[in-house]
């Protein structure tokens, strides 16, 4: 079985990254934004695994990094959701445009 070239994997991860970025900038719903952030994180994870596999096949550093990032992403999601709940309590909305108190 011929190997998938590295560039293909990088294209996938870049696509994932920019989809996440697009979601982050265009969505107004905080939950959707959080999901977009997860996409960005996972694109980074794919990069880690791919570079690990192609550059240092005999080592597992990148894979472990990925595991850590998944764990941290879970914690981050918990924190983000706590923030979103607080925001909802204050503004009765999870629309990010509603929370523009911090302007000049």
């Amino acid at each position, binding site marked *: 079985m011929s190997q998938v070239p590295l560039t293909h994997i990088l294209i996938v991860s870049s696509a994932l990254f920019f989809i996440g*970025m697009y979601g*982050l*900038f265009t969505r107004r719903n905080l939950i959707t*934004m959080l999901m977009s952030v997860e996409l960005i994180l996972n694109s980074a994870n794919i990069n880690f695994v791919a570079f690990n596999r192609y550059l240092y096949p005999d080592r597992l550093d990148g894979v472990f990094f990925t595991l850590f990032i998944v764990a941290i992403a879970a914690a981050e999601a918990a924190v983000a959701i706590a923030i979103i709940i607080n925001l909802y309590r204050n503004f009765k909305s999870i629309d*990010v*445009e509603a*929370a*523009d*108190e*911090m*302007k*000049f």
Partner: protein
Amino acid sequence: MPNSAYIVLIPLLPLAGFVLLGLFGRRYFPRSSGVIGTGLMVVSTGLAFWVAYQYFAAYLTGGNQEIVPVRLSWLTFSPGFSIDMSVILDPISVMMIVVVTFISLMVHIYSLGYMKGEARYGTYFAFLGLFTFSMLGLVLAENILETYIFWELVGCSSFLLIGYYFDRPSAVRAANKAFIVTRFADLGFLIGILILSFHAQTLDFRTLMSRLAEPDSRLASITTTSFLGISLLSWGLALVFVGGAGKSALFPLHIWLPDAMEGPTPVSALIHAATMVVAGVYLVARLYPVYAYFGSGVLQLILYVGAASALLAAIMACTQTDIKRVLAYSTMSQIGYMMFALGTFHPGGEAGTLGYTAAMFHLFTHAFFKALLFLCAGVIIHLVHSNEMTDMGGLRKLLPLTHVCFLIGCLAIAGIPPFAGFFSKEDILLAAWHANKLVYFIGLFTSGLTAFYMFRLYFSIFWSRPVREASGHHGEDRGGHPREAPFTMKLPLVILALGAVFAGFVPFSRLVTLSATPLAEEGVRFFWVFPVAAALIGLGIAGYLYRVASDRPERAAASVRGLYRFAYHKFYIDEVYSFITKRIIFNWIGRPAAWIDRNVVDGLMNGLAMGTARMSAAIKGFQSGKVQDYALYFFIGMAGLAVIFIYIYT
């Protein structure tokens, strides 16, 4: 005089009084602060007399002439050059501490009665203590910078006391005027100090003089270098004299002294008659060897400035009606006498140094009778509640003691024998006779004028009106009995009157001389006739014009109307000053400076602030408050950094 370090207590006790009363007087001793201040002054005066007794006893038996009992290194710049806080004892400083402590004590006692019931009683005595401390420090200072420090302190306490009634706008104005005029003159003093001490590499009076006396010392440069055709040494000495002239209210820097009479009367007696205003004379006397042997041109200046002050002030005094102002002009005139006496030095023999002794002698006697006159004026003003001569008259029965004391003071200042002023004034005129005939005749004429204006004052206050009329006007207390003054006010009058009678018998020509050897009593035969005759003529004219109220003074004034008006308006010197300051300095220096300040300095700052404000207004739109915008900037920033690292940095 071994172990005489206790002499520092003489100035330090009044300082202690100042600190104590200044900090706690108002709260803890609102009633007793006067007694505390006076008690400290009694001790200080006693010590001063003891020191003087010991010093002159040793001096007359050929003791060391100059003693430095206390030396305190304060700021050491290099091994050979330091600023010390030291005390020097020589005949003039010992004489001055006696005068200063004694007059200050009298004024303290007098103020116990005079200032009773004032709201700021404690503050008043605190200021008196500060003044006495500074004046004693000035007198005892051993180097010229120390002198300067105390000189400014004296000016500061004078400012505080003139402005004692700070709720009166005129007093505030007078205090500011006094401070600014003397400060302006002190600028000259400071520059003079810098010139002298820079070239002599010392601040110490005695080192300065000994270095100047060496012909081939490092000071050669100061006498050869010239600026505008006058040697630097002369410039230095002249500038020091300008400082002295400002403090001593010599023409044309005298304008602050008449206004300074806004202060309480005892203060005028102490500061603006007996002690502070003679500081300029003292300063010149302190540096006298330098003036005498290296500054003959400056001495000429001193001679003419002194003579002009004496004459002009006497003329102005003849036309004033405020009794304190008359006394102020007379002070100025007498200081003019002292100054031109100092200017009469001429080399060769003892006769040339007579002026020095005479000036110090007149300073000594003048302190007594002028303080006496001011304190008498204080009693009168206390009774009449007015400073104007025209509100007085016929007070001789109402104020019998004051009457006698005032008369003694007038006789003393007019130079009638055997009162104190006669002796000192005769010495001054003798010195002038030997030095410069023109100045002698000015002095003689001024002497007549002095007698005239003093007796004009005397007759206007105590005669000129029937006694009964006067007692109906004022001076009756609730019981209907006329009262003169409390005991505390009478006692200093009596003591000072005794001083005004007997101070002339102090053998000054043996005690205070330039060469430290007694002067031979070589007089001109019947020399005293002319001054006494001049004084008697002045006295007679005053008696003729003012003894009984009449229209004679008006007619006399009308006959010299131009001169009278000129003198009445003080020769328009105040107007000249305000013309110079308001029209010339304000318009040509003040306004451009203000313009530069407003437009350039402020403009720079305002421009900076405005630029910042505009800039931030322009970019504050970035702070939209929207999270996604921030995320976008963040992303752009990261992308930018990535571009930099990938394409440029490698």
